[in-house]
């Protein structure tokens, strides 16, 4: 998606430098791969929580896959973060990857990514140290996965360059629906012992789905999202002008 800021600041005939660097492509690609892996990890975690097993699929397979897929998801997320920081197409310093909402580029939507990344690190570190922790403490942190995954999805939809692309939307739907189904199943399983919490959970999921779809239609899928997504435009303009002054041809700042 060619940024509106770049179009606005570019003079006719000027060379517009947009998302053409390998790092930026890597950021977009690893983001999508990380989403798929994180979804797979979440699904395996839920399957484990549901005590899923069969003759061909013992429980240790679910757990082993869950662990390895989670580590792989972290690896791709680390690459995603590093390429985002190293690429100078948009100015996202390293601290923005850890501390949410402090940046200038789409702070809210990049911030959700930071929250997800922090949670991922906490989830993986506590799971690696699990045998040295109390079950209670580990479980408390691991409940964070129910926040980590939705926040990651929101980050992807809110700031993903490729969100409006049909197959990316379909991929996101293919990630969201199984997790919703498995979580509802998990809540239904908890119904007999905790009916209020289970009902509240199911209502919250449905409300989030409806609100999320409405937001998606009026937000990232509606025109001019790059303008409305909260990038501090004054700064973007300034850096764009500085860029033009520096080399006379290009403009930056999506």
């Amino acid at each position, binding site marked *: 998606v060619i940024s509106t800021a770049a179009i606005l600041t570019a003079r006719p005939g000027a060379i517009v430098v947009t998302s053409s660097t390998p790092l930026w492509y890597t950021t977009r690609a690893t983001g999508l791969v990380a989403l798929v892996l994180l979804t797979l990890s979440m699904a395996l975690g839920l399957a484990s929580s549901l005590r899923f097993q069969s003759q061909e699929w013992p*429980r240790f397979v679910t757990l082993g896959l869950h662990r390895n897929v989670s580590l792989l998801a972290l690896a791709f997320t680390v690459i995603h973060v590093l390429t985002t920081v190293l690429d100078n197409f948009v100015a996202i310093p390293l601290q923005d990857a850890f501390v949410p909402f402090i940046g200038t580029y789409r702070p809210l939507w990049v911030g959700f990514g930071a929250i997800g990344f922090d949670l991922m690190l906490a989830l993986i570190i506590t799971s690696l140290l699990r045998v040295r922790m109390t079950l209670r403490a580990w479980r408390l942190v691991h409940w964070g996965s129910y926040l980590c995954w939705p926040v990651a999805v929101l980050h992807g939809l809110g700031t993903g360059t490729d969100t409006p692309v049909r197959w990316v939307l379909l991929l996101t739907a293919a990630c969201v629906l199984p997790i919703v189904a498995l979580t509802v199943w998990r809540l239904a399983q908890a119904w007999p012992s905790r009916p209020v919490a289970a009902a509240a959970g199911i209502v919250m999921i449905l409300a989030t789905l409806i609100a999320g779809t409405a937001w998606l239609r009026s937000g990232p899928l509606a025109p001019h999202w790059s303008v409305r997504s909260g990038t501090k435009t004054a700064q973007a303009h300034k850096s764009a002008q500085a860029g033009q002054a520096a080399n006379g041809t290009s403009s930056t700042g999506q």
Partner: protein
Amino acid sequence: VAVAMTGRHELRVNPIKCDAHGVCIELLPELIRSDPWGYPIIAPGPVPSQLLPLAKRAVADCPTLALLLTSGR
């Protein structure tokens, strides 16, 4: 063939924490079998060294952290 022992590691289960998930029984059938209700029964004695990696995995993968590997002499 003599079975090598390494520092006499022993497996123990905490029956209060155990919730009969059965993961340890799947991972280490050589030493852990199931009772009629799915709870683990652990073979007495030290863990043979060649089974130690699996024993460690069973400990790490126990959903309720009810399995312990002790290195008592």
